[in-house]
């Protein structure tokens, strides 16, 4: 099996800069508590230039670089970021395995789709660069070979042929073994992995035992550790606890960006697009607020989702400060991408999403809808409200040149005789009726109006099986000074009701 390894040098520092772009080029460290002392876990490039080294105490580091900023190092967060990056890579590889804290193995069996293993490495690095990470990629046949070459090699992309592990590993320094195994070899005066591999296996086993033999095998390119693919989580959820409770929107915005970036990377890797999301704000000390977000068009673009979330959250008034945040994708569907026509710009969709989100926040979700016809004869129930999800299509620049496509809207014939305005609840008509039952006049819009003409009846009846059956005789009535009105006589009480206007 061919395996690739992606190594991101100082992954936590890279991640920090992606989250807070203002930190780029500035000296900062991530510190952790080791035996009640705060020590540097990872340092940025400019901090390293100032002489700061991992393992140093924070006091010593600050003394070297007075403008040094420091942030807590959370191994769990790093692992989550690494996982989301791995899931984003699922568009080029069928499986990945985490190698905490700063690397990933991936299955290189799909290399033929990218023009060979080198092409696969390039593509994987491009995907990572799309998420802001820089790294090195190596493809080899063993886990150890690929990992060590990526970590200690110098080339951004390297492909080790089958059986060529020992040769590729030979020039690497002994410290690449990264463990207590290298000490006995160092004591013997050996400097490279090639020198270790040249030792006779029997002698190494006799003097170094099982551990020594294992290190020797690794150096000869004989690693037999199996590749264990990471299990994908079914639920697409990302959460984060803030360093301190946020009382304004500003700190929340950074957390939101991080979470949505990760979530969208995971969605993109699975070729899915979010349809419905929910934001959960954990308040300090108690309480939580849940905010749903439904998209008119499914999307996996972090920037758009961040814009929408900003609209939802920026005008929120909360009683307590926010201590934590989680975002969950409640519903997702296949991401078919966006097919733009010649001359189309993707900004139109973003504008639609933003305005819908703004309206939904202010007016409430239930105020926005698109109608869908129902096969029901009772006129006021002939349609239902649905979420507004317009079909994505545009004629774009070629619009005028393409042949006009006839738009066929299958509509029932009866609907052509329906008024454009309809009352949800029919209103009783203040009518003057002759003894014979004829409608003579009605009191409408503040005036007594005579009936000028009348057409009908059209009888609608049904639902005899339900508790409230109906039977109505509909007429189109021209009242004086008005267009046609849709009036019916209800068989239950024989009264006239106004239901609509042919406006």
């Amino acid at each position: 099996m061919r395996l690739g390894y992606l190594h991101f040098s100082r992954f936590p520092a890279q991640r920090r800069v992606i989250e807070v772009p203002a930190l780029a080029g500035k000296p900062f460290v991530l510190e952790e508590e080791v035996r009640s002392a705060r020590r540097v876990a990872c340092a940025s490039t400019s901090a390293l230039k100032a002489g700061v080294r991992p393992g140093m105490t924070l006091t010593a580091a600050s003394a070297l670089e007075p403008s040094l900023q420091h942030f807590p190092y959370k191994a769990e967060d790093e692992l989550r970021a690494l996982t989301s990056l791995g899931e984003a890579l699922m568009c080029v590889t069928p499986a990945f395995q985490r190698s905490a804290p700063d690397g990933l193995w991936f299955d290189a069996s799909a290399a033929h789709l990218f023009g060979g293993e080198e092409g696969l490495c390039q593509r994987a690095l491009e995907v990572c660069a799309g998420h802001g990470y820089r790294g090195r990629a190596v493809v080899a046949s063993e886990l150890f070979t690929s990992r060590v070459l990526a970590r200690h090699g110098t080339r951004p992309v390297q492909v080790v042929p089958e059986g060529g592990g020992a040769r590729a590993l030979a020039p690497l320094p002994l410290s690449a073994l990264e463990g207590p195994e290298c000490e006995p070899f160092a004591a013997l005066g050996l400097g490279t992995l090639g020198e270790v591999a040249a030792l006779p296996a029997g002698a190494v086993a006799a003097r170094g035992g099982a551990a020594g033999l294992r290190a020797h095998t690794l150096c000869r390119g004989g690693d037999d550790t199996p590749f264990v693919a990471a299990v994908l989580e079914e639920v697409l959820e990302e959460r984060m606890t803030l360093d301190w409770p946020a009382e304004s929107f500003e700190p929340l915005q950074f957390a939101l960006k991080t979470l949505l970036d990760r979530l969208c990377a995971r969605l993109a890797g699975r070729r899915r697009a979010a349809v419905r999301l929910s934001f959960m704000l954990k308040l300090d000390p108690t309480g939580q607020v849940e905010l749903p977000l439904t998209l008119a068009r499914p999307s996996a673009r972090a920037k758009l989702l961040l814009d929408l979330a900003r609209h939802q959250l920026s005008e929120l008034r909360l009683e307590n400060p926010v201590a934590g945040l989680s975002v969950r994708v409640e519903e997702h569907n296949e991401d078919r991408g966006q097919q733009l026509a010649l001359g189309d710009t993707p900004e139109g969709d973003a504008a639609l999403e933003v305005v819908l989100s703004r309206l939904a926040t202010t007016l409430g979700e239930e105020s926005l809808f698109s109608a869908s016809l129902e096969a029901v004869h009772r006129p006021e129930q002939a349609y239902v409200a649905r979420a507004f999800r317009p079909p994505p299509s545009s004629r774009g620049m070629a619009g005028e040149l393409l042949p006009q496509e006839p738009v066929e809207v299958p509509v029932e014939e009866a609907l052509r005789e329906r008024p454009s305005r309809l009352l949800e609840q029919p209103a009783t008509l203040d009518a003057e009726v002759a003894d014979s039952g004829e409608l003579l006049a009605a009191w409408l819009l503040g005036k007594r109006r005579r009936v000028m003409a009348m057409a009908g009846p059209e009888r609608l009846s049904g639902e005899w099986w339900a508790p409230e059956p109906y039977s109505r005789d509909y007429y189109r009535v021209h009242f004086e000074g008005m267009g046609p009105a849709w009036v019916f006589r209800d068989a239950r009480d024989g009264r006239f009701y106004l239901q609509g206007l042919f406006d």
Partner: protein
Amino acid sequence: MSATAEQRSGAVVEQLRERIRQLQAAPRSYLATLRTGVEEVDALLPSGGFPLGQAVELCGDAASGRTSLALRAVAAAHRERRLCAWVDGPKELYPPAAAAMGVELSRLLIVRPQQPAQLAWTAVQLARSGAFACVVLDLTQGLAAGASGGKSSGLRLSLAEGKKLADAAFRGGSLLLLLSSPTAPADGVTRIRTESLGPEGLAVEVVRSRQGGLGTRAVLEWSSLYPALGPEGEEAPLLAGEAPSNEELVPDFYRGRSWERRNACGILGQRPGRDAAMPSFRSRLGTGTAPR
């Protein structure tokens, strides 16, 4: 691949390139007007239809054809696969009728704000976004108030709101149609007055316009807006004797239950427990022994 096949695919690619070049070189013609499809009305408007990027007011009494004209403009936008929005103040738009006029319901966003004060704000947001080719703002008060005898006046926009709406339509490049009543006119750049002339038809008149056509008037029949209704003139108004009597109106299920009329007999008229047993369905259902 043989040499001929290569040549052929090369020629196809060259043809496609040429086609793309043509498409890119052609000046992009934007959708500039929305035609109602009613020739008389389109002829009244200086640009041959409702111009995009402007606020046009359709002002008229109840049942004077405002809504159907607006729906026809929406249908014209839908034919170009553009989105439209309807800010429905009185909550009376009837989508099935809209669908019958050619409106594609999946592309029509209907917004029904709870507060009347939110109507103008909503329309401004929708028009300014540029995502909708046509935004209709219905400012009329609605039938519910009118039917009960109250005076239907509708919502009156302030001067500032009117300016904001016009500005939003201009910025977003969308057509903003304001449906209003004569007692509470809105501040549209172009105002078209619709008036019902009774069963004969309706009149449409341009009463305010900066692009000419002021004072032009057209009279059209109701059947031009609602083709299925047919010309009303041919349909004689019902007289007293022709209207169905009250007795005829009552459907069967109100008059009496069927089993009561059959006097509690079975569906074949047999009396329960006295006549012969019900015929067996077993052989028909296929569970009985089939004849060999």
